């Protein structure tokens, strides 16, 4: 159980924030950061741990968001149930795309391209399909009751987002310490060698993609509840595909807290840029692009990678040394 201690500590620290400040600005900022962190947790499992770089994680985010929104708006389904179904739908889409792509043996750039294409197909379909409200979008009715997964103040939203992130951290940690996790990392490092050691590479990739999609879909469902409005560009747009990969890469791909650290850093950069330049569109994304190139070029293991250079091996998460104590 020692292995999960850092997660408990981190969650506890974050949970204390609403007691220290009533500022909506701060809470809003942190909610967005947690949202990106959650989406990034999903990406990180497939990309950081598994080595398969998806450029279309919007496909899962948007599916989660739309499924829960449409179920509420058109079929009167309870919002919490919508979350569960949305996550399941995201997982299903992930499994489908994964099955098609990995069956065909797509890897590397080809895999990235095909995920990009799938996300775009979904975006265009959503922008014309009547069920999503086409160009007008989908609006969830305001219904400020906890049973409807809507709250008067920010704090409950914050804690739920934190809870979701915490859950994803536990899931990833559990995978890190499991056979599936060992196989996943082996697939990332060398597929052929993994096959020769009895690893069913297809199933491992498919499993990772499905769980990855489910986690990112949860972020989409949460987005729908928090903002109550969706359209194709929001749900399936490149912005979330980029954020979902940027956070883990900056924070540390293949590391447990990578997405969380990365999300905080990029959101901070984004807000700082907006303050300095007064909100002209585009500049914050320019900074994101520069950061991406800089991280890949100068600190490929991300911020967590830099930090772990200073931590003794014992305390590094996921290291074989700590297995003997775990």
């Amino acid at each position, binding site marked *: 159980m020692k292995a999960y201690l850092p997660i408990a500590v981190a969650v506890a620290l974050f949970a204390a924030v609403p007691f220290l400040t009533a500022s909506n600005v701060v809470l809003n900022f942190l909610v967005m950061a947690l949202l990106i962190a959650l989406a990034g947790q999903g990406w990180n499992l497939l990309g950081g741990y598994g080595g398969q770089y998806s450029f279309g994680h919007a496909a899962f985010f948007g599916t989660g968001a739309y499924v829960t929104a449409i179920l509420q708006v058109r079929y009167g389904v309870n919002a919490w149930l919508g979350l569960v179904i949305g996550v399941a739908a995201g997982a299903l889409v992930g499994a489908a795309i994964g099955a098609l792509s990995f069956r065909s043996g797509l890897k590397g750039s080809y895999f990235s391209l095909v995920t990009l294409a799938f996300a775009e197909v979904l975006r265009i379909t959503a922008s014309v399909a009547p069920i999503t409200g086409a160009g007008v979008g989908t609006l969830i009715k305001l219904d400020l009751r906890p049973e409807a997964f809507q709250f008067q103040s920010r704090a409950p939203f914050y804690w739920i987002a934190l809870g979701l992130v915490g859950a994803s951290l536990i899931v990833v940690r559990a995978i890190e310490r499991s*056979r599936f*996790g*060992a*196989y996943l990392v082996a697939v990332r490092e*060398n597929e052929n060698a993994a096959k*020769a*050691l*009895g690893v069913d590479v297809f199933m491992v990739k498919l499993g990772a993609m499905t769980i990855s999609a489910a986690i990112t879909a949860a972020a989409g469902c949460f987005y729908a509840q928090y903002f109550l409005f969706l359209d194709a560009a929001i749900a399936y747009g490149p912005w979330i595909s980029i954020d979902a990969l940027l956070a883990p890469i900056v924070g540390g791909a293949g590391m447990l807290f990578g997405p969380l650290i990365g999300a905080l850093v990029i959101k901070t950069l984004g807000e700082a840029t907006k303050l300095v330049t007064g909100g002209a569109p585009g500049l914050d994304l320019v900074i994101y692009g520069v950061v991406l190139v800089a991280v890949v070029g100068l600190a490929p293991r991300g911020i967590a990678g830099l930090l772990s250079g200073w931590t003794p091996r014992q305390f590094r998460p996921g290291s*074989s040394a700590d*297995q003997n104590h775990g």
Partner: protein
Amino acid sequence: MVEALLRIENISKRFGGLRAVDEVSFDVMPGRITALIGPNGAGKTTLFSIVSGFLRPDDGRIIYGGIDVTGEPPHRLARRGIARTFQIVQPFAGLTVRENIAVGCHLSRRHRADALAAAGDIARAIDLGAQLERPAAALTVAGRKRLELARALAIGPKLLLLDEVLAGLNPSEIRDIVPAIRDIARRGVTILMVEHVMQAVMSLAAHVFVLAEGRIIAEGSPQQVAADRRVIEAYLGHGAASRMTAGAGHG
């Protein structure tokens, strides 16, 4: 009559117009070391890739332990007990030696802790104990070869395919690793090795098959094969055997 552990039956494989493997058949008997030798381009690695499931043969069958396993994917063959090393070593570069070997140990162990512990035992048995926590990328060539061996052993194979495991090692490194290979065979693992280093073949192999231009041209004990004129010609060219005997006559 002991059953062959591995039976290669009429295996053929073409690449474009080239017949890399041409109706090759042979048996590998259990419990001993069998060598597959032949000049470069003879088709040895192609054959290995077929036996380990990385390539599908155009014709023929692979019978392992009495079961037809032709066309099964590598991970299934690994689970049946066929392990292989690669000619160009393929470590999991970003992982430690222990984590590398543990991937193999996981075949029969669910728990991370068990696999990591078992990896330690295997590493120590093959003299890699001191390197356990080092990243695989930091090993020397000889170290990486041992890691290849250790990883393959980790899945608990009945049949071990060694693809030029001695390539790139200097004579003292070869002297160090040959006993390790003999040791593995003594523990009951059947070994089929492709090798160019003749001294190792002579000292390790109980039986040798010679492959040239995709066909088996000779077989027998290492001594028999070394004296076979067809083998000499395959390596040194047409007429070489006669030239050698003629030269021996004068010398």
